[in-house]
């Protein structure tokens, strides 16, 4: 029982990280139809810069951790905004080329990270409390899982509030629904595009810092590995659906954990099988339209 509970909470913690990547991917795809292969790079950049800041301020201090989260989010946001402005926007409405540009960017940037930080993983420790465990009904749960879950929940809440309560949020929601109508009403959706990229990049950068604590290391391939699961999450949840991404993140991560423990380490395969089943029964995903 305690094992199952541990797996469940660890799974939700991993799901929180998936969600931080998938939320941006899903919003970007929903509004712009772009599959952003560079999203993993936003995450890696956030993780690396967060790591650099944390090592300079002292990894075991809460201040260092908080600043690394902030720096990670900021780095992801700035990089994402620049990517959108200078690469993606030039290829307006040409979806395949937009994908290709992000693929090339991801390739070049991962190689650059290899050159700067080396291919070997860099190990990182957080504040003392995050390295210990808490007893929950007989299960010893590592505390960094709770931090990941809380941060992801706050991000979900913030994005939902932003989408529902602000004018820009309304434009983005309307754009996801029917972009040509929004354009026809005389609203310049291009700013909304940049905004969505920035939000997605910030969430991914935040996810990068949390992922480096969850897995205990930073490496140039961290983002690319998580990106593939984030893709699966967005397809299962329904492309363009934020809530779908949240639900699917947790489902995918928990399934992965349980399959890894009870089915001889087949977690990754179980996720792909789930994807195939969802595609065969509901091609538009759990909460997708149509």
């Amino acid at each position, binding site marked *: 029982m305690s094992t199952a509970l541990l797996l469940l909470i660890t799974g939700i913690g991993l799901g929180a990280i998936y969600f931080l990547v998938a939320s941006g991917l899903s919003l970007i*795809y929903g509004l712009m*139809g772009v*599959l952003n292969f560079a999203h993993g790079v936003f995450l890696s950049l956030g993780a690396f810069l967060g790591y650099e800041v944390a090592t300079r301020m002292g990894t075991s201090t809460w201040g260092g951790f908080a600043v690394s989260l902030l720096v990670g989010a900021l780095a992801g946001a700035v990089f994402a905004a620049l990517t959108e402005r200078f*690469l993606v926007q*030039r*290829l307006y409405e*040409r*979806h*395949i*080329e937009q*994908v*290709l*540009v992000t*693929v*090339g*960017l*991801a*390739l*070049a*940037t*991962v*190689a*650059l990270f*290899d*050159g*700067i930080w080396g291919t070997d993983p860099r190990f990182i420790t957080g504040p003392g409390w995050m390295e210990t465990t808490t007893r929950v009904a007989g299960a010893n749960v590592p505390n960094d899982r709770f931090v990941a879950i809380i941060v992801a929940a706050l991000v979900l809440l913030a994005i939902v509030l932003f989408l529902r309560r602000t004018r820009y949020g309304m434009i983005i929601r309307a754009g996801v629904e029917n972009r040509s109508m929004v354009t026809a009403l005389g609203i310049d959706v291009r700013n909304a595009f940049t905004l969505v990229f920035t939000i997605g990049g910030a969430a991914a950068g935040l996810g990068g810092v949390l992922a480096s604590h969850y897995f205990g290391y930073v490496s140039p391939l961290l983002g*690319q590995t998580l990106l*593939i699961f984030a*893709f*699966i999450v*967005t*397809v299962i949840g329904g*492309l363009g659906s934020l809530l779908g991404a949240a639900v699917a993140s947790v489902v995918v991560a928990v399934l992965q954990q349980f399959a890894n423990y009870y089915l001889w*380490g087949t977690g*990754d*395969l179980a*996720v*792909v099988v789930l*994807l*195939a089943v969802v*595609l*065969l029964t509901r*091609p538009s995903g759990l909460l997708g339209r149509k």
Partner: protein
Amino acid sequence: MRATLTRYALPVVLVVLLTGLPLLDLSLPGVLPGPTYTPGSLHLMALAMVMAALALSYHLLFGVAGLLSFGHALYFGFGAYALGILMRELELGLVPAALLVLAAGVALATLLGAVSLRVTGIPFAMVTLAFAQAGSVLVRRDPGRVTGGEEGLRLPTEHVPDWLVGVADTRNVYWLALAALVFTFAVVTWVQHSRAGHVAEAVRENELRVRVLGMRPFLVKLAIFVAASVIAVGMGMVHLILNSGAVPHAVSADLTISLLLMVVLGGVGSRWGAVLGAVVYVLLSQRLAVLAQSPAISDLPPVLRIPLSEPLFILGAIFVLVVLFLPGGLAGLGVRLRGARRTRGAQAPTPGSLVAEDETT
């Protein structure tokens, strides 16, 4: 008349020249590591030809049918690993094992293609990526100790004919790779000019219209998908023999991305573009890695040294620039230059953003 001549004579001359290369003593400093008859150069050229054939199969998927797959490496890796494992575990000879792997490849491609083609466009890209990732994980995890995990799989040389093993026999492998490339080029041309190829091109442009005409896009796309995948399986097998083994990179998404890079670099929709893109890519990635170790690069300040010593950074940057500023790739550049010369600067034909038709060249 002149067009027919270049169309048929040029490839024949090229193939004859390439066939004779292992017997000649030509040096291309900066491109090849040594004279053309040395094993090192032959190996590099054979690798470029295998990659060119693989890029041609990707051209069939992406250039003809418009299917942006991120899982093409799965079939390449399947060919390499399955052949090695079958020969070792069942102690089969090369030919029966290869036939068995091809049959299994058809079954695998049909099954996975049928599932992934339930979605189109970007979701298709994600789904193929997920399947390939599952394959990649499987190979790395090494269930039952058959794939060799990160270390890779060694070619069971005792089941391979003697004339294909050993450094001195590199030229035989070179001829094998050349034959594979010529065969693939012929098959891809045939598929592209068949009824299925034409329907696939029509589906790429407007699927709804094809459906209205009473045809079934799904079956045509599946046929193209299976054809491209089986070619990839075959190339995986040649690659296994060429490199005397297989490593997990053969199944990775990185390999598919490099295929995409080759096809886009050469010019989407053009067969010669795919071949050219692959050759340029293979030579560049080899030569840039050598260049990175040279004193000209290693003495530079870090700001310049780090980016320039990463071949993938340079290739990725070139790729981004091609996508942004050279939509037709190298083939499109050729068409554009020829057009500019013919019309003396008056209204050069701009090749379509993604479709540079082979027939116009």
